[in-house]
């Protein structure tokens, strides 16, 4: 008898072998630490010869951070301010630069080369050194008359302004990757859309608002989230050195406090990510109106379901047994 070889469908679970290293990393270096940090922040953690010891102290660590530590509150405010001023600036500047680069000009790749290069060299110590030699400042605006007027009206706003002008180059340096992403998004827009609009008599200003920006929304979401994450872990932001310092100096006893600090910091970052998500997500607004026929069908289906439920509620044990048993028999009969 000849052996019939049947082609087996390939098992897709081979994928798990390829995924294995990453999965282990996900569980041990992301998921477990994520939950553990929340737990640690409610504990007093100390290290002795026998290992780590935990003692549950509730919200004590947070109280220490907010009310006993003198600098933490200011740093939190500074951090929020920095994200608030930097993110819109970075998004707008990179969008403008991308639109400029997208127009029909020469040396485009040369400009792109310049705009992208900070991505390669940017790191905390380099920025600190460059800032210390005062090369990041666009211009000193604190002596200008208009600035003093603003300062009189609202010191908060003037602080923001001076922050922007002092670190203008730093803000520009964050735009490297966003420009490339926006440019890529712009080039993906269908050319026929512009043609159709210009035939209908739209000028380029209208095209910008009606065609470019709506199509760039999803890119904007990615860029926004990326920027928030980048700034959060960057050494120039005020809370960064406090977080690192707390982790490093409280190594033997006080990791619980460090966890609380880190948690507050992370909640801020994740709030910003959620905000950007809410602002820039592409909403699916299309609502499907049911036709009368569909409505009728839905209604009939609903009535049928109610009847069936009523029937099953009232049926006796014997009837139930018959129904289930018969159905099983039927299935068996089909198979043979």
């Amino acid at each position, binding site marked *: 008898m000849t052996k019939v070889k049947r082609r087996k469908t390939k098992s897709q679970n081979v994928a798990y072998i390829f995924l294995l290293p990453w999965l282990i990393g996900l569980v041990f*270096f992301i998921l477990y630490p994520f939950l553990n940090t929340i737990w640690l922040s409610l504990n007093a953690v100390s290290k002795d010869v026998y290992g780590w010891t935990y003692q549950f102290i509730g919200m004590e660590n947070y109280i220490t951070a907010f009310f006993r530590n003198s600098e933490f509150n200011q740093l939190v405010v500074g951090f929020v301010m920095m994200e608030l001023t930097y993110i819109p600036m970075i998004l707008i500047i990179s969008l403008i630069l991308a639109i400029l680069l997208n127009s029909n000009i020469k040396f485009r790749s040369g400009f792109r080369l310049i705009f992208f290069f900070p991505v390669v060299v940017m790191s905390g110590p380099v920025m600190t050194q460059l800032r210390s030699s005062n090369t990041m400042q666009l211009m000193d605006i604190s002596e200008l008359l208009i600035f003093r007027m603003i300062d009189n009206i609202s010191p908060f706003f003037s602080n923001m302004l001076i922050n922007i002008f002092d670190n203008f180059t730093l803000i520009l340096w964050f735009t490297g990757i966003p420009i490339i992403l926006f440019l890529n998004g712009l080039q993906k827009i269908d050319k026929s859309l512009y043609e159709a609009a210009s035939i209908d008599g739209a000028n*380029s200003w209208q095209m910008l608002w009606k065609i470019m920006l709506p199509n760039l929304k999803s890119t904007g979401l990615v860029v926004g989230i990326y920027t928030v994450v980048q700034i*959060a872990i960057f050494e120039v932001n005020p809370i960064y050195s406090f977080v690192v310092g707390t982790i490093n100096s409280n190594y033997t006893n006080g990791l619980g406090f460090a966890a609380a600090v880190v948690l507050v910091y992370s909640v801020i970052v994740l709030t910003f990510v959620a905000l950007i998500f809410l602002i820039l997500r592409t909403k699916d607004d299309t609502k499907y109106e049911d036709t009368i026929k569909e409505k009728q069908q839905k209604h009939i289906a609903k009535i049928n379901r109610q009847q069936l439920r009523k029937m099953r509620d009232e049926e006796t044990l014997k009837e139930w047994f018959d129904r289930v048993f018969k159905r099983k028999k039927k299935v068996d009969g089909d198979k043979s």
Partner: protein
Amino acid sequence: MKSKFMNTFEAISKFFSKVSAFLKSDKLKKMFMGHGAGRGIIGKIIIYILLIGISYVFLFPIIRMIALSFMTRNDLLSPEITWIPSSLTFNNFVVSNHVLQLLPPSWTASNLSFWARVTGTFTNPGNLFKSLLNMTILATIQTVIAAFTGFAFARYNFRFKKTLFVLLLLSFIIPLPMVTIPRIMMISNLQENIWIPIYDALFANNFLSGFFSRALFSTLVPQVLFALFGQGINSAILVLIFYNFFKMIPLALDEAARIDGATSLQVFWHIYVKLVVPIILIVFLFSFIWNWNDIYTATIFYQSGNPLVVMRLSLFDSVFADQAPGAPGDVGIGLISEGYKSAATFLAILPLLILYLVAQKQFIEGIERTGMTGE
């Protein structure tokens, strides 16, 4: 009969009407303004001015840094000199190279034979070569693991695929400090319970003790562990790059190979990897620069004796103060000048600048095709 005066007047008025007709016509307007923004001459000039101006602001810190790094102390203090130093001097570079310990000491030491210099390179290779080696190790591991993960996501339909993919994206969004503390405790446990007993039993009292370190926190091991399990710096983006490129390869190739009896690993190696060699280079380069600039992980997991150049740069001021000669009571840090600092910064980013200029096309292409936008 018309007078001469009337004739000339008519000629002039004709000329003016012609000129005004030309001025009113769309031709001139088109020439200068174009149909859309940025098409005409004026629009183009505005765009060029804007772009060149912003490029100048972009490059200003770097140009300033290069100019400062060639200046002597007198040049720095002189109000007349802002950009071009009065004389070319490399003294700043020599000093900052000494403080950062970049090049092998045997290269710069005097009175050594050529052979001694070569062997000295291997016994004490200096921070530059050490960090190049370390970052190459990390980047290689990260690239390989990212390729595996990207392949699995791109080509298989396994259970929980969507959930895992969302977790991949989440692992990028979660701020790194959030997961740092438990990681520290894990590595610390690993060190106390596993590594130190092994070390004491096997390496402590023989010639091997020089090769291994008793403390894991002063080695590259933690970072290697993270890279090995796909959680190094920005690993999620690297996975996404691979994912998008692997998805572009037609499935028919894959199936043809499988019908011929290839195993999954063979398919992965002979079809996928060999078709995306340029992308492997892109991912490697990104991984390299991100690891090079990743001061956060370096500060926490590899604090003492990290040869990473950027890490050395962050300690530049204090190391300089220690090494600078001075009478007791005279603070060495007073001798530090912007010239030294700029030279040190310049030296620290020079390898990256060279890398970027050589491979700029790959860098930009890599970000363009991450597929982070939309898909």
